[in-house]
């Protein structure tokens, strides 16, 4: 890939120099995109707006004090999860960091249990035990939601290793942020991935910042972050995250190489978050200029661009898309109702879900004292 990959023409770290007129390559014609039916294209739109509407709604209730802890919004980055996960088949798995709502929804999780989880309710996807950073749906091949920066990267490696070990033809997608690349665990994972030929694709969602620190202040690199792959003789590519076709076209290549040739790779997808690091980040407009944020929203918003594309292609009308949007919002609002009406976890339930054996009341669980609350 490196030799044939087009030079990245837009990177969020240098976004201020890109405008709406910056020429773009067209990935609509790549086979994986050509194969999309109109319905499938509309579905991609639906998935993106569902993420956005879900989060906008969550934001409102976070500000209203209904949600605890952190809330790391994915708004602005929707095309990354939607584009890449739209390529997944039954044997493909994925795992990400704490900014995980988009991946959860795109993996097929319903809004109700997610919103209930944010509300800390017993009906939440993690029974109120995980919160915003910890959504999981193993039945949908979605392995979370992890709070320790880059802590998920060896797990993603393990998913790929497990697939190969179990003889399943699939790959693991493991997402991380641009700040996460400087954790040692990620590098250890890269070396093992290349050495053991593990079918894993690492996807750096490069939104230009780790909390208040710009990419330039956190990382030393040549060219781009993905290029660090070369240190391990691994393939890499850079993708413009505002273009769903490009995300799909390039991710597809990487995923196929993982599945068929056991070649891991790093994809760096440039993107942007509209809100603060988490909602509580009061500095969001201090380390980024309002112009920078506005420029992205105006010219690179992935949902707006995709909508434009669908209309231009004659795949859907604005009215149809508005209806989908409305539906997404309605679902989000309904999920709040569900969450509000759900019971909080009981105090006793704190002690569930620690051990498989005690949860399942196995003979092993009857021997010895497992818990030590005083």
């Amino acid at each position, binding site marked *: 890939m490196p030799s044939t990959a087009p030079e990245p023409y837009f990177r969020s770290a240098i976004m201020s120099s890109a405008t709406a007129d910056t020429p773009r390559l067209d990935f609509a014609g790549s086979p994986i995109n050509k194969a999309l039916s109109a319905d499938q294209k509309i579905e991609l739109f639906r998935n993106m707006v569902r993420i956005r509407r879900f989060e906008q709604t969550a934001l409102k209730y976070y500000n209203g004090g209904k949600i605890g802890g952190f809330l790391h919004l994915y708004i602005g980055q929707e095309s990354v999860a939607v584009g890449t996960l739209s390529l997944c088949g039954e044997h493909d798995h994925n795992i990400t960091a704490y900014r995980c709502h988009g991946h959860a929804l795109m993996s097929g999780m319903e809004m109700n249990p997610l919103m209930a989880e944010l509300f800390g309710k017993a009906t939440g996807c993690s029974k109120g035990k995980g919160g915003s950073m910890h959504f999981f749906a193993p039945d949908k091949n979605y392995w979370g939601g992890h709070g320790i920066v880059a802590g998920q990267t060896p797990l993603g490696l393990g998913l790929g290793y497990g697939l190969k070990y179990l003889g399943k033809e699939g790959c693991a997608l493991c997402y991380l942020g641009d*700040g996460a690349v400087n954790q040692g665990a990620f590098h250890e994972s890269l070396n093992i991935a290349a050495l053991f030929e593990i079918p894993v694709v690492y996807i750096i969602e490069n939104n230009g910042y780790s909390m208040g620190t710009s990419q330039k202040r956190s990382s030393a690199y040549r060219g781009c972050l993905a290029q660090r792959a070369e240190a391990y003789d691994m393939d890499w590519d850079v993708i413009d995250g505002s273009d769903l076709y490009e995300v799909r076209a390039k991710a597809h290549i990487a995923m196929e190489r993982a599945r068929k040739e056991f070649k891991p790779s790093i994809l760096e997808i440039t993107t942007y978050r509209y809100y603060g690091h988490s909602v509580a980040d009061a500095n969001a407009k201090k380390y980024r200029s309002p112009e920078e944020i506005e420029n992205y929203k105006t010219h690179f918003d992935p949902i707006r661009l995709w909508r434009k594309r669908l209309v231009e292609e004659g795949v859907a009308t604005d009215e149809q898309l508005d209806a989908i949007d409305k539906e997404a919002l309605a679902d989000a609002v309904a999920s709040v109702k569900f969450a509000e009406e759900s019971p909080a976890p009981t105090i006793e339930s704190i002690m569930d879900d620690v051990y498989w054996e005690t949860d399942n009341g196995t003979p092993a669980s009857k021997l010895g004292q497992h818990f030590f609350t005083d």
Partner: protein
Amino acid sequence: MSRTLTYREALREGLDEELARDPNVVIMGEEVAQYNGAYKVTEGLWKKWGDKRIVDTPISEAGFIGMGIGASMLGVRPVMELMFWSFHSVAFDQLVNNAACVRYMSGGLINCPIVMRGPANGGTNVGATHSHIPEGLFAAFPGLKVCAPATPADAKGLIKAAIRDNDPVYFMENTRLYGMTGEVPDPTDGDFVIPLGVADLKREGKDVSIIGHGRSIIHALEAAETLKEKHGIDADVLDLRSIRPLDVEAILKSVMKTNRVVLVDESKGFGGVSAMVSHLIQDKAFDYLDAPIKRVTTMDAPAIYSQHIEDEQLPNPRRIVEKVLTLG
């Protein structure tokens, strides 16, 4: 004279004074400079002291903490912020081997005058990985010192002592305390330093000793009031403040007076500071105990997220009162 400061302000004042006192003191960590600190403890310090003294680092705890330790061997006196103490897990080797053992392995030739600080607590609905309570964990490593202030004055006095100490000091703060206010002596009245190794009797009683550190002390004080008002039980509340060195004398003095003990500890039940203190008490004051030593610990599961019940998983005034009443 004294002023009312928040715990956060008191800490900051302590840091600021030490930055002024010693040009080798440098503050480092994620978002401590330009962002003013994730929890705003270092707010304004970068502006005042500049790039050399207040340093933003990448998200590379093993790397930058190890860097601080290496620099401390050369005589720099780094004060490292862990955005959460929970992130110790990715820097553990540097924390328990390089900082704790290099003096020993070199036969005393090297010392590491370094402070690691940051919030070390549950109770903020951020889930299991972000809510570790590691005081006991680190106190178990000879070579390390650990303290955990409960009040603004203690925060200021202890951080200054920690920075001046010539051994590595692991300083455990609490996000739930940052906004709490209290009296702190005025700097014009002289240098305010609280030495490590000295517990503080935060409330004087006679019927039972409630012993703990950090936020548990706030709970204990509240519980003590309830015990007094509703049950006529008059509790000693002993704030350990420093976990290692540990003021064993103060512990024994209180126990020998009250003959009854409840230890409060935000750790999980297996181990923690309280298991150690329990062992010490029964060993050294066996004949003074009228009842078994009881503890109030965090319910023994990973930290739950749910804002509705996380405070029930943790020690809280209600649980302390109930535990004291079981002593009969």
